């Protein structure tokens, strides 16, 4: 008798997935958007991305060595944080900005809480708003596509109610506009998002309600009169697609249940729209996601599913 019957506890069916694999898959799915960003804004953007990633990985390793914990620099999460942070930077920032931002994102946004799985807030966005609060003049200096001439983003132009250059929806969709490195090409972002959705790494429950809410708000309140807003413009501009598919869906900082995720997405959409339409900043995706990150534990508490075989909790 060589083979013994081994009775183990559930789960019995294993899928060939792990945190490490998922993290690297998300990184891969983001490559097309970055490639277009580098194509549009020049090789300088490439160095921003590389420096962001290297600093994130280095910081993670350094802190884990100093605090005598397991070094997890190869699990892809630090790479993803650095990558997302760099994607959220304007294309002409000084090269020390991604370094400082990545350091802050990993050290304060993630390791202070105890590393992957413990952080309350999305680390990349923590890094971004730190940079935004510290050096606003660099973080709001955008350039024209294929050029080094400074220009505002479409949303900023809209906010200042200035003359909007003729930007077609196709330009917005393909990325021919001012903006952050990784957010401009909606097409390649959607390509990456589709890949993640089909593989089941992310679900539609956060991004779709998020985007629809922003569209709805823009349609109702975005125009000169009610129900006349340019909803497609609002969906295609800014960092909405990048934020909705790649940052709001972060496993650690978003709710667990489907119902909670829909609430999370709608909340993000409302906050984003309020900031865009009535707030002081032209764009509010990062603040919206961070605010909803903060209420994720409450959402989780009130959307707890009933355990099979037990009665409904009163």
């Amino acid at each position, binding site marked *: 008798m060589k083979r013994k019957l081994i009775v183990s506890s559930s789960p019995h069916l294993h899928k060939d997935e792990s945190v490490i694999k998922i993290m690297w898959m998300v990184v891969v799915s983001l490559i097309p958007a970055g490639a277009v960003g580098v194509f549009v804004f020049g090789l300088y953007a490439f160095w921003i991305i590389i420096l962001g990633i290297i600093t994130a990985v280095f910081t993670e390793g350094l802190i884990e060595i100093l605090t005598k914990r397991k070094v997890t620099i190869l699990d892809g999460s630090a790479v993803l944080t650095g990558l997302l942070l760099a994607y959220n930077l304007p294309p002409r920032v000084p090269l020390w900005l991604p370094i400082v931002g990545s350091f802050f994102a990993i050290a304060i946004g993630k390791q202070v809480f105890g590393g992957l799985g413990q952080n309350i807030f999305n680390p990349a966005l923590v890094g971004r708003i730190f940079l935004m609060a510290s*050096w606003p003049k660099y973080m709001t200096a955008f350039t024209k596509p294929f050029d080094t001439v400074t220009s505002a983003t479409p949303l900023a132009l809209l906010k200042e109610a200035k003359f909007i250059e003729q930007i077609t929806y196709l330009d917005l969709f393909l990325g021919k506009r001012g903006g952050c490195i990784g957010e401009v090409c909606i097409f390649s972002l959607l390509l990456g998002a589709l890949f993640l959705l089909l593989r089941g790494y992310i679900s539609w429950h956060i991004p779709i309600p998020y985007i629809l809410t922003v569209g709805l708000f823009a349609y109702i309140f975005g125009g000169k009169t009610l129900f006349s807003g340019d909803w497609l413009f609002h969906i295609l501009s800014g960092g909405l697609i990048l934020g909705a598919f790649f940052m709001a869906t972060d496993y650690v900082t978003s709710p667990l249940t489907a119902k909670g995720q829909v609430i999370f997405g709608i909340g993000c959409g409302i906050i984003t729209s309020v900031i865009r339409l009535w707030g002081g900043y032209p764009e509010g995706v990062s603040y919206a996601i961070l605010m909803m990150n903060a209420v994720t534990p409450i959402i989780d508490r009130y959307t707890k599913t009933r355990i099979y075989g037990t009665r409904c909790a009163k």
Partner: protein
Amino acid sequence: MRKVIGEFLKGIIKENPTFVLALGLCPTLAVSVSIINGIGMGLAASFVLVGSNLIISLIKNFIPQRIRIPCFIVVIATFVTITELMMKAYSPALNRALGIYVPLIVVNCIVLGRAEAYASKQSVVNSFFDGLGMGIGFMLALILISAIREFLGKGELFGVNLIRGFEPAFFFSLPSGALLVIGLLLGFFNLFKAKS
């Protein structure tokens, strides 16, 4: 005599009001933007602490138990008024910089906390040195926090620009920067305590 020195020293490290007792965080967050403000606030709070501890310890036997808190507040408010008028007369610039936080020393929980927990139970001499130690501990904590914030947030120390070309992170001049700095320092203090 040794006990008195102990009462004095405990406020500086072992029972530091900011980092160990976590008291008086509101003025700490608000005024620790520059070292000068920190020293000013620390001196004002120290004066109030010493004065109120002294008086409350002297009159502790005459204060009815049930209305002791209002009595403490009256004593504290007297010293705060003295401080504020002195500050207005001799350093109006500092008074403007500290703003509402000078009168708010009345409700500073370090002052009330020491009155309630210490001065109303201890001898006059002990209370005097307790107040002095706590005040100096509070001031040192303020200086530490404000030095970090002033350097990172403005690139300056005592208003003097230190490194040319250093672009300060404005974040550290904001209240959120203060929360972060205090949180990290609290963490380091706890680490230090756990090790020793």
